[in-house]
């Protein structure tokens, strides 16, 4: 060994190498090709018969000219689930017409008759609403008397059917003779279940060819509709029972239709002539049977249910039947029962013959003339017995009247609507009617006459139908259509005058909630604030808000739709007090989350507005405080994400100290959510780097103190985190930041903390819910760490390479997994560091920080320390290599490790040194001994060495090359 040069590592001229290695710049044509650009299909002709997969990619992306974000374009409605949701929401799926509809003429006729378009809100949409709204806690009963009507209802008609059916009927009657079933004390849910059971048994009876039994079920069910006990449940009962009637109507129609399917199915637009005699006779039999039902209500409902079947018998059947059934309803004494019967008739009518508008109007006028019965003795007595107030009773009519009016108003000329309004006036502005008109007519129509309507509402009789409901309905129209601008303020004032007088908090909030929309839409924060104040005033006494969370949430939702400027929003005095009404934890968090979501979406500018910060901190704190031991991980994650979103919008600009103290505050507030703390550490590190940038690298005394404060912040924040790798990475990162800011002792502390944390790293960690070995992560971290250590100057009070030794000691003591080469890999990885440290000029350095290169200035003592350390490491590695090679598995490992070490020596070692050169050759041979090496890699390496050997300062490699032999392929 030449004494003058004690370096074992080859000397490097990093700058020259960099120049030599600079790749030739290959010009990239932008816009033409990019691997991440979505597939573009320019030729849109898709041949039939090509595979599905190949055509589907064209649909979503072919139209985009500029490459969009690939993730967002994935979500662009093309995913099948959202597509389903889009079609099913709002409109009923289009009923596929029979494929055999042949000529165009028929199609056209169908179109004309199809007077109900997708803009007609179908009954199916109302169902749920009614069921949810008209509920009861009282006990219900079902009274079914199967078979007791023998000889009356069915006797005469049934004889017309075949012998077979008659015997079956008799059997049935015997089976169920007088089987009067009375089910008492049913809860509402029980009741619904029972009705559903009946629906099922109807289908079963039908499927097992027991048509008579099916009819009996339907009759019994419709009879239940004449029972008005527990009257507040009546609308829901109507919904449940008419479901059964619908089923029945469909079954009968389909059955007769299928009787005509020979030789080919009837077209959708068939005429009477297409129907064969057997089908007609069966159909007629149904009508005869139904005509003989004794009781009025079942006779009416069941005939209405099979109204469509008239198509089999005559061209004019439906238009003759509808007026007759309409008149028949006059025989129903109970006005509520009659109103719903009308609603059902209109429902069936609109479905089967939407062009027949006359019966709709007739029904409505009959309904009007029966209104006086509501004040009559029979109704009033009933209400007294059932202890139901008139206003509540009147609201029971709403679904029925709304539906009838909706049918009438659908695509109706303005004239008709005006006429209806006038009729309403002549009925002394009957409130119930007025309400339905406002609900059923087009919002634009109502909005344009809003002032008129307000006048009518005012003129209404105070008793009876509650005015807040009227204003609620008006508000609902005004939420979707705008009244003339000049009238808006008057409308709001008039409406609120009434709303604020509503006593019952439930009634009040139901109405106020609707009007919030109108207020937000047309007015400023001042008006909205007033409204909020009013709501608080009404709902605070007796903690009434507890029963109104849904409505209060909807109020917040409406406000957030219109107010995206959070400085305006939070400057509403009553906004936060309004939030305070959400006292149930789950609801409060829900509300906070919805506010945060809107905030993150719309607050794109950084802010330091104290109003926003205070309010948002309050909201985030609320979310944070909801976290407890039982909170699910997902929930925590989403809360943390929202809070982080907020923290990222906060910026105090150049006021770094303020920013830091904000982070201190935030840390105190959000200490339970780890991702938030991580974000805070990052924020503070960024802050330190920002300070450095502003000071252009030279800190003043003041800024130096500030960046130390930042380091201190991170240093005390990191230990509270749970995830060990998060801690490790943050220590390293913060150490780097501290170093960059010339805070040497802080940097030392961070790195020392990281090193002393290493023994605690467990063997396996949970990654996305799966347990995985931590070894890979640990190796990555250590390599990253080693790279940083190059520029960390040694502490004057500790020995040379204090941190490197410390790290290697930890690695040595760490209990690695059995049969693992990880430790040796760390050692191999440490060699390049040591080589880099022995250079005269380091590869990289930190401005204004003196690294070891300056501290030691190439001191031979320092270099020999490095050599000693390297030798120890190489010794350890070689020991390990020796220990391997017992079996093929470890031989493979041995080969790979030997090659790694060879590569390191080649790249960093000074191979002019014979010992080292010999070692390298030996390692090469060792790695090739068993023939387990990657031949291509070997060939490439060899070529590289040859290439290197041509350089003048590397000529010594030429000799070594001779000794490196490739293994022969056997």
């Amino acid at each position, binding site marked *: 060994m030449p004494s003058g040069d004690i370096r074992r590592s080859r000397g490097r001229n990093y700058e020259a190498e960099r120049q030599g290695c600079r790749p030739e710049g290959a010009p990239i044509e932008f816009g033409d090709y990019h691997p991440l650009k979505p597939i573009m299909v320019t030729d849109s002709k898709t041949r039939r018969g090509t595979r599905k997969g190949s055509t589907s990619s064209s649909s979503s992306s072919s139209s985009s000219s500029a490459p969009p974000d690939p993730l967002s374009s994935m979500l662009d409605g093309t995913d099948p689930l959202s597509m389903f949701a889009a079609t099913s929401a709002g409109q009923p799926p289009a009923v596929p017409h029979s494929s055999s509809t042949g000529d165009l003429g028929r199609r056209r006729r169908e179109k004309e008759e199809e007077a109900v378009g997708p803009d007609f809100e179908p009954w199916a949409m109302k169902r749920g609403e009614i069921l949810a709204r008209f509920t009861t806690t009282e006990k219900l009963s079902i009274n079914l008397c199967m078979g007791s009507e023998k000889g009356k209802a069915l006797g*005469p008609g049934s004889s017309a059917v075949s012998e077979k059916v008659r015997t079956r009927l008799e059997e049935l009657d015997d089976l169920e003779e007088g089987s009067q079933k009375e089910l008492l004390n049913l809860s509402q849910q029980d009741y619904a279940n029972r009705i559903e059971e009946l629906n099922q048994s109807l289908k079963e009876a039908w499927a097992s060819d027991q048509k008579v039994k099916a009819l009996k079920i339907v009759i019994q069910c419709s009879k239940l509709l004449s029972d008005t006990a527990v009257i507040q449940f009546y609308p829901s009962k109507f919904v449940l029972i008419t479901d059964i009637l619908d089923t029945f109507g469909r079954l009968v129609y389909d059955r007769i239709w299928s009787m005509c399917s020979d030789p080919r199915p009837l077209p959708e637009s068939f005429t009477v002539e297409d129907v064969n*005699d057997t089908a007609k006779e069966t159909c*007629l039999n149904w009508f*005869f049977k139904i005509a003989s039902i004794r009781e*009025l209500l079942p006779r009416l409902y069941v005939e209405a249910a099979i109204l469509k079947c008239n198509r089999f018998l005559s061209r004019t059947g439906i238009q003759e039947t509808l007026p007759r059934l309409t008149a*028949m309803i006059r*025989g129903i004494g109970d006005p509520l029962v009659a109103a719903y019967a009308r609603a059902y008739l209109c429902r069936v009518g609109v479905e089967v013959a939407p062009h027949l508008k006359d019966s709709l109007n007739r029904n409505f006028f009959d309904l009007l*003339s029966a209104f006086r019965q509501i004040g*009559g003795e*029979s109704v009033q007595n009933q209400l007294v017995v059932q202890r139901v107030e008139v206003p509540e009773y009147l609201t029971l009519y709403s679904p029925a009247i709304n539906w009838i009016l909706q049918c009438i108003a659908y695509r109706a000329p303005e004239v008709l609507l005006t006429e209806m309004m006038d009729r309403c006036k002549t009925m002394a502005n009957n409130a119930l009617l007025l309400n339905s008109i406002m609900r059923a007519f087009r919002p634009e129509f109502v909005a344009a006459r809003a002032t008129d309507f307000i006048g009518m509402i005012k003129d209404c009789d105070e008793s009876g139908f509650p005015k807040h409901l009227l204003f609620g309905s008006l508000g609902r129209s005004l939420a979707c259509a705008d009244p003339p601008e000049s009238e808006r303020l008057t409308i709001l004032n008039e409406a609120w005058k009434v709303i604020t007088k509503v006593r019952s908090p439930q009634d009040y909030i139901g109405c106020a909630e609707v009007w919030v929309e109108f207020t937000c839409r047309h007015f400023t924060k001042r008006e909205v604030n007033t409204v909020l104040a009013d709501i608080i005033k009404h709902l605070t006494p007796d903690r009434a808000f507890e029963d109104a969370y849904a409505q209060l949430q909807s109020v917040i939702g409406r406000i957030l739709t219109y107010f995206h400027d959070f400085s305006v929003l939070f400057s509403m005095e009553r906004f936060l007090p309004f939030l305070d009404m959400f006292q149930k934890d789950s609801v409060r968090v829900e509300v906070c989350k919805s506010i945060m979501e809107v905030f993150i979406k719309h607050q794109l500018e950084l802010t330091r507005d104290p109003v926003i910060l205070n309010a948002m901190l309050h909201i985030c704190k609320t979310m944070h405080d909801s976290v407890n031991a039982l909170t699910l991980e997902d929930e925590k994650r989403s809360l943390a994400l929202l809070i982080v979103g907020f923290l990222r919008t906060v910026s105090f600009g150049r006021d770094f100290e303020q920013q830091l103290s904000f982070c201190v505050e935030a840390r105190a507030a959000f200490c339970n959510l780890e991702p938030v703390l991580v974000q805070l550490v990052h924020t503070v590190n960024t802050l330190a780097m920002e300070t450095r940038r502003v000071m252009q690298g030279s800190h003043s005394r003041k800024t130096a103190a500030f960046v130390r404060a930042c380091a201190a912040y991170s240093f005390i924040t990191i230990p509270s985190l749970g995830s060990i790798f998060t801690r490790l990475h943050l220590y390293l990162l913060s150490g780097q930041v501290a170093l960059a800011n010339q805070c040497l002792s802080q940097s030392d502390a961070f790195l020392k903390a990281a090193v002393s944390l290493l023994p605690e790293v467990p063997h396996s960690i949970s990654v996305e819910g799966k347990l995985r070995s931590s070894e890979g992560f640990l190796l990555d971290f250590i390599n990253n760490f080693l790279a940083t250590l190059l520029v960390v100057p040694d502490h004057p009070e500790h020995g040379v390479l204090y941190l490197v030794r410390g790290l290697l000691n930890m690695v040595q003591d760490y209990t690695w997994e059995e049969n693992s080469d990880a430790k040796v890999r760390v050692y191999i990885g440490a060699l390049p560091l040591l080589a880099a440290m022995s250079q005269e000029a380091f590869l990289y350095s930190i401005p204004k920080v003196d690294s070891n290169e300056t501290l030691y200035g190439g001191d031979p003592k320092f270099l020999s320390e490095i050599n000693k350390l390297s030798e120890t490491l190489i010794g350890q590695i070689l020991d390990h290599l020796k220990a391997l090679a017992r079996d093929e598995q470890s031989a493979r490992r041995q080969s790979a490790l030997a090659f790694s070490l060879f590569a390191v020596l080649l790249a960093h070692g000074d191979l002019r040194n014979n010992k080292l050169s010999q070692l390298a050759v030996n390692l090469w041979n060792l790695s090739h001994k068993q023939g387990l090496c990657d031949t291509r890699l070997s060939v490439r390496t060899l070529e590289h060495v040859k290439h290197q050997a041509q350089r003048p300062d590397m000529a010594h490699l030429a000799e070594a090359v001779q000794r490196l032999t490739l293994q022969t392929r056997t």
Partner: protein
Amino acid sequence: MSVSLDIKLKRANKVYHEGPIQLISSNIEVAKAGKVPGGKTEIPFEFPLLTKGNKVLYETYHGVFVNIQYSLRCDLKRSLLAKDLSRTCEFIVHSQPQKSKVVPTPVNFTITPDTLQNTREKSSLPKFLIRGHLDATNCVISQPLTGEVVVENSEVPIKSIELQLVRVETCGCAEGYARDATEIQNIQIAEGDVCHGLSIPIYMVFPRLFTCPTLETTNFKVEFEINIVIVLHDDHLITENFPLKLCRV
């Protein structure tokens, strides 16, 4: 091997009309003796409806004292060891429609406590005024009975208004004649305290098997009546009777 036998009538509604010549019973052989092959064998048949002697072929009618029924019976005679098979099937006879035009003869009615007969204590009855009309008392059997009823006023609420179709059979015999009235259909046209002053439709379809054109022969009569029955809430029963004449056109 199981064998079954069925009769299928050509007309789906099983309604046949009498032929010009009359006969009450007729036997025809629809198939000669021989072997029926396995599977389904359909044997077409037809014969004219002829009355026996000078008797009239009346319409199918199911009553209490009077029953007019027509049936087909098919016998399948088989060899000694196998049972004979037999099947009966009812068919319905409608008389030929009347040639003459039916005069509807509408009738108006007003019912008050004063118009009632058969009441013991007229004075104790609550006050009411019910008016209405039937569009026809001469009815075509295949058309519904129609009309209107209006409750102008009633002191006691109405519980129910019903239409009761009654058939009256009269049989002549040695001691004079037996008369029997049977309700054959009862239809409710109003339920509950109906709106006063609003006309309620009267509408009834005549049941197919239990009605026939009004029949008057030397031996028996089949006649029909309609009762409008008003039940008050205190269970007072008010009935107004209208004889009907049914015919087929």
